[in-house]
């Protein structure tokens, strides 16, 4: 009698434990990251660390190790992925150095039965999943905002990112499509700021003396504060500068807002997108049906949400959102 009760209790406990622990508790996930040399990537790695550590502690997965290559080279990252195949990971989450150059290594991983989820820097190998950002839509949203803020239109200065990177082309295409649809705006100059404040500051300082009055500066993130500095140094009135969610940009915006009611908006990708990719990989390992192409929402900050976001952003860091399993399920369901 007692033995049967004990057995029953054990069975009940075991079933509860099984319900709480998904089928992925024995699975190992690796992050293959190509670059760590800026604040966005650092925040991305920290978010990964925080969320996956909790997931491992909760027994959702067995391991979630992050690896970053030293030189931001596709060949180096391909070798890294081949090592991960040999180490027996069940899924590889990858932020790729190139959309095409890793395809060979990615295919090898797929053939070995490994789930590959690419995000941010996505890959075009069909066997991999892609958690992509609608960069073009992000660029266009800047012009949509300016349409409301500047009904009369005006001259725009465009700060682009790193020449030759597809993200730069996509955001710029969105911006220019928006400008083409709204003839009240005129793009009078474009410089490359390499997504870095000091490079943007230098480039803007160089072109600014030759430009007519600028109504707004459209940007790609990481360059807004540098642009503001350059306008101030040249003694020109500050235009509407679209920000990119960096803490120094938000802080500058807050100071201007308090001093003279300055209005703008800020848009970028939350570095925590790495955690969304993690949960997507976990869902696929769990046997869920997941479409190959998913889109991440971008993180937008407006006049009324500025204070809350600024308070949540670490000094000198990037505004961030970490995603949960439920968020991933929602994104997957929304795409189906």
């Amino acid at each position: 009698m007692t033995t049967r009760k004990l057995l029953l209790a054990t069975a009940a406990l075991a079933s509860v434990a099984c319900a709480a622990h998904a089928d992925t508790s024995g699975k190992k996930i690796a992050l293959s990251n190509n670059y760590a040399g800026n604040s966005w990537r650092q925040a991305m790695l920290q978010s990964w660390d925080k969320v996956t550590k909790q997931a491992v502690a909760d027994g959702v997965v067995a391991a979630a190790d992050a690896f970053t290559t030293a030189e931001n080279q596709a060949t180096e990252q391909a070798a890294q992925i081949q090592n991960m195949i040999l180490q027996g990971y069940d899924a590889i989450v990858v932020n790729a150095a190139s959309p095409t150059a890793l395809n060979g290594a990615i295919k090898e991983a797929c053939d070995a039965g490994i789930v590959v989820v690419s995000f941010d820097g996505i890959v075009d190998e069909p066997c991999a999943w892609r958690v992509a950002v609608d960069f073009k839509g992000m660029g266009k949203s800047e012009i949509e905002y300016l349409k409301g803020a500047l009904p009369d239109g005006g001259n725009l200065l465009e700060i682009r990112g790193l020449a030759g990177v597809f993200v730069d082309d996509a955001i710029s295409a969105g911006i220019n499509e928006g400008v083409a649809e709204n003839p009240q705006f005129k793009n009078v100059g474009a410089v490359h700021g390499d997504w870095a404040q000091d490079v943007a500051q230098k480039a803007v300082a160089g072109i600014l003396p030759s430009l007519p009055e600028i109504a707004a500066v459209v940007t790609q993130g990481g360059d807004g504060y540098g642009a503001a500095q350059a306008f101030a140094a040249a003694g020109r009135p500050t235009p509407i500068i679209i920000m990119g969610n960096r803490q120094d940009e938000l802080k500058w915006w807050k100071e201007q807002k308090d001093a003279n009611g300055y209005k703008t908006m800020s848009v970028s990708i939350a570095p925590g997108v790495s955690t969304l990719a993690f949960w997507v990989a976990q869902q696929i390992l769990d046997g869920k049906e997941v479409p190959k192409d998913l889109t991440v929402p971008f993180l937008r900050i407006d006049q009324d949400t500025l204070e809350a976001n600024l308070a949540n952003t670490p000094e000198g860091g990037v505004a961030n959102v970490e995603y949960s399993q439920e968020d991933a399920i929602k994104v997957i369901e929304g795409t189906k």
Partner: protein
Amino acid sequence: MNALNRLLSRPWLWSFAAALAVWIATVAVTAGASSGGLTDAALTFAAFSVFVGIGQMFVITLGPGNVDLSVPANMTLAGTVALKLMDTQDSMILPGILVTLLVGLCIGLANYALIKALRIPPIIATLSTSFIIQSAAIWTNRGLRIKPPPVLADFATSSTFFVPNMALLALLVSVLAWVLLNHTIFGRWIAAIGQSMPAARMAGVPVDGTRLATYVLCAILAAVNGFLLSCFSGGAALNMGNEYLLMSIAVVVIGGSAVAGGDSNVPGIWGASLLMFLIVSMLNTYQFEAGYRLIMTGLIIIAVILVASGRQARPR
């Protein structure tokens, strides 16, 4: 006539001539209205290239194979560590400057220790230290941007008698470097080593001490540049040194110093630094696509070097 010939044979003349031509082409767009603003910006940003350019020039003068690739990582580490230490406090400026110099000193010593003790070629040695330094910078502050103390930020972004403070500082360093190179025994030693290390050794030049001092000098100038740039642009960033690696080498070459070592000049660094900033400004002003912009930059640099070296070859 003789004087004119002597002037034309100066290798640094051509970088200045090119910079002036580009400046004129740029201000022509606005019929001269932009001349003040452009000059101001050019002097300010050229200053940062001058600091690293002078350091690199000393190293390159040491002869074939001598180059310091740790400049960008060095700038990042010095800026990061100093701004973190100062933590926006005006009272901490002096410790901030001292720690910057210390960072430069340590990196210079480490570089030469690898080159000398382990007999690693300078390119490989400084590249490996740059990985360690960059990792140390990431580890120090994980890429967070701390603002400079207000007094320093004001100083870095303002002007004295219409000349940007950064340009004045760079000018001071340039004059010191010129005296060091042309009017001290140390400068002669560097040139001698660059022309022939065995001959210099036979002649009793303290080769190791001179090379050590040169690598340390270059590292300290790079560290100071990182410190000033982060004060100027509102904080240190992990990727802030990136463009200064090729820049530091380019300004030396365009300025008319011999890449093979043994012969260098300080004024050319200024001409080349101004040219490098103004080319980008001009091509941006004329709204060239990024691809064409890089091609044009390359062509202009090649043209300047060709003209300069052609002129230099004959009088010798």
